[in-house]
């Protein structure tokens, strides 16, 4: 430590003197301690006092040493941080010639540290936006993404969280199974699998989930698997069916069910009573769906091959509908790295459009009468707002549905109530989001809707319009600018409604006064 201290510090005089004293002191201290061990009373009080002073001095030196070390480390770090953002030409050269990954990662770390302590560490020449764009560009090349997803992640998360998410996307999630209660119990399955050499533990928040920690045999080919005692299913997918909460004897529809993980889970919760319709639009995947249904011993299921948007024409009046919508897969990057490169803004727009059509079809398929209401669960394996909250918001405006609690409790991040300039219904907080870097599960979104019947003239739940500050201000200005009408009483302004054919009767304030007795009059009458 002394050598380093001597080498790094600039103030040599201080170091020299302390070095001399350091060499001497330990010996003195040793002697003192040795003396002290025998008996304190024998030592002269002056000696003890001097000993205490020396100890304190030692402490101070140690502390200052520590502080200087830390300072010097920081200074060294700052030296590295005091870098310029490279020119576009330099960056171009990098791209052409190939990247040095360690250098790239060092730059990523530097920029993220600057951004976390921006006020102190920034280079005044560059704006925050420049740092952020450099970071995004570096991350893009480091992890192999296109611009689109990186931008999206940065718009949703802080820098630290985005980095954690990107890191989590590189690692795979643990393998999870679901015990098939139609053929076995979870306890028996754990026993049987342990005998086979598969180390499994139950997942605490489900009654049927298992997590595989290690395995001597392929988990997807054991005789228990073939006999239909369990199914390989990601933990996120289980949440969608837990939210759906199917009961025996109900009529349930699964609109996009291939390869059948969720459909078989629904059937096992239904105990093969009632009926289930497992639909999928892709005929190539239906073989897998049917095979899984047969393997797991599901007897009350019909498999259909229809475009989900046309399902309401075929059948309606389901008690529950599950829509695991086709999505960009931004939450399952760890399973399918192609998502990093393949998805673009156009893809997202077209997907969002299909999802909106599908959710309306799902709502139309559900039971909605005076006495009974149905449930719809919408889920995606994506974490982007355009595919999740946007679609639910669209459904709320277009159909008579309301958001209800998913039944997952506090497990999961609450859905966004606002995103950027957009404002969603306050009950959007009832939906749940799952992130790979928080729960070690695939990225997922679950929302539960209930149909509301407005036959009796119930007022549709009011949804707040997206208000931006500028809009608000402009309204205020209009109000202020409007001059007071000196002639005659104020007329009530007709309300703006969507249907121009409907006219609103204008009534004057005096008429309004006369029609309804005022509060004062009512109070007087009461007395």
């Amino acid at each position, binding site marked *: 430590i002394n050598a380093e201290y001597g080498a790094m510090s600039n103030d040599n005089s201080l170091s020299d003197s302390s070095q001399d004293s350091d060499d001497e002191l330990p010996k003195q201290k040793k002697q003192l301690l040795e003396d002290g061990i025998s008996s304190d009373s024998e030592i002269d009080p002056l000696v003890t006092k001097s000993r205490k002073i020396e100890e304190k001095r030692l402490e101070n030196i140690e502390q200052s040493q520590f502080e200087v070390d830390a300072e010097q480390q920081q200074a060294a770090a700052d030296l590295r941080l005091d870098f310029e953002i490279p020119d576009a030409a330099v960056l171009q050269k990098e791209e052409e010639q190939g990247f040095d990954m360690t250098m790239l990662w060092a730059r990523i770390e530097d920029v993220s540290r600057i951004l976390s302590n921006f006020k102190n560490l920034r280079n005044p020449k560059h704006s925050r936006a420049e740092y952020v764009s450099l970071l995004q560009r570096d991350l893009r090349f480091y992890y192999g993404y296109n611009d689109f997803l990186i931008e999206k992640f940065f718009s949703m998360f802080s820098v630290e969280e985005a980095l954690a998410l990107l890191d989590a996307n590189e690692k795979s999630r643990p393998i999870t199974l679901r015990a098939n209660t139609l053929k076995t119990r979870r306890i028996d399955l754990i026993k049987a699998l342990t005998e086979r050499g598969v180390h499994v533990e139950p997942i605490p928040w489900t009654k049927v989930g298992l997590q595989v920690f290690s395995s001597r045999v392929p988990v*997807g*080919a054991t*005789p*228990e698997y*073939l*006999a239909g005692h369990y199914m390989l299913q990601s933990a996120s997918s289980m949440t969608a069916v837990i939210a759906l909460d199917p009961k025996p004897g109900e009529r349930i529809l699964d609109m996009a069910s291939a390869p059948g993980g969720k459909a078989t889970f629904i059937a096992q919760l239904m105990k093969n009573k009632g*009926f289930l*319709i497992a639909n999928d639009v892709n*005929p190539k995947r*239906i*073989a*897998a769906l*049917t*095979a899984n*249904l*047969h*393997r797991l*011993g599901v*007897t*009350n*299921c*019909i*498999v*259909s*091959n*229809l475009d989900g948007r046309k399902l309401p024409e*075929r*059948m309606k009046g389901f008690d529950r509908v599950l829509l695991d919508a086709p999505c960009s897969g931004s939450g399952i990057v760890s399973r399918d790295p192609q998502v990093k490169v393949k998805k673009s803004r156009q893809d997202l727009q077209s997907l969002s459009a299909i999802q909106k059509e599908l959710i309306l079809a799902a709502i139309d398929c559900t039971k909605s009468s005076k006495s009974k209401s149905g449930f719809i669960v919408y889920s995606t394996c994506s974490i982007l707002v355009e595919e999740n909250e946007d679609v639910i918001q669209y459904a709320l405006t277009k159909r008579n549905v309301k958001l209800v609690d998913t039944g997952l409790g506090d497990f999961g991040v609450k859905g966004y109530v606002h995103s950027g300039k957009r404002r969603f219904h306050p009950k959007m907080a009832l939906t749940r989001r799952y992130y790979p870097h928080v729960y070690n599960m695939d990225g997922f979104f679950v929302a539960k809707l209930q149909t509301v019947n407005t036959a009796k003239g119930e007022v549709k739940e009011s949804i707040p319009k997206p208000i931006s500050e500028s809009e608000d201000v402009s309204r205020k200005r209009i109000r202020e600018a409007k001059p007071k009408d000196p002639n005659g009483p104020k007329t009530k302004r007709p309300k703006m409604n969507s249907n121009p054919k409907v006219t609103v009767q204008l009534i004057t304030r005096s008429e309004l006064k006369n029609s309804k007795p005022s509060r004062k009059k009512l109070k007087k009458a009461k007395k």
Partner: protein
Amino acid sequence: VSTQSTGVFCFFCVCVVLMRPLTDEETKIFFKKLAKYVGRNIKFLIEREDEPYVFRLQKSRVYYVSEALMKISVNFGRKELLSLGVCFGKFTKTGKFYMHVTCLDYLAKYATYKLWVKPSAELSFLYGNHILKAGLGRITENTPPNQGVIVYSMSDLPIGFGVTAHSTADCRRLDPGAIVCLHQGDLGEYLREEEKIV
């Protein structure tokens, strides 16, 4: 011979129509095959206490489904309906019926003759091989030859079905390498031949 050929011709024409109940001839062929494995217990499949179940033919495959579910499946068109309830097997173009492993649960429930396989030979059977004398664990008494049997693992898990090559008495006297049971269907087909059985 002429009646046989006309029978086949009729069958082929009728096959292309919507989901329908089996014709008498088809029912005969199908039940004959079923009885090979299940014997007289077929009556438990046809006459159930809880609710009426029916057999239906869709795209030359036979499905076993409750009547209520069958009525709902009428909503779907020929090309859209791909499976109902449990698939028992399919009719070939020449009119023969092949049983698939998808109905193993029902076969095992009402099985008359059973065969148990040793753990060493379990995997071999699951790969689609026949069962040899060396792999034979147990077999029901008085099993005749050419009898449909359900194959179980030693932990009483049904893993497939087959046809005996010899009677139980003869089996005791066989060499270890001789075939005891001819493979007809096993659970491994869910991985090997998924599309074929479904």
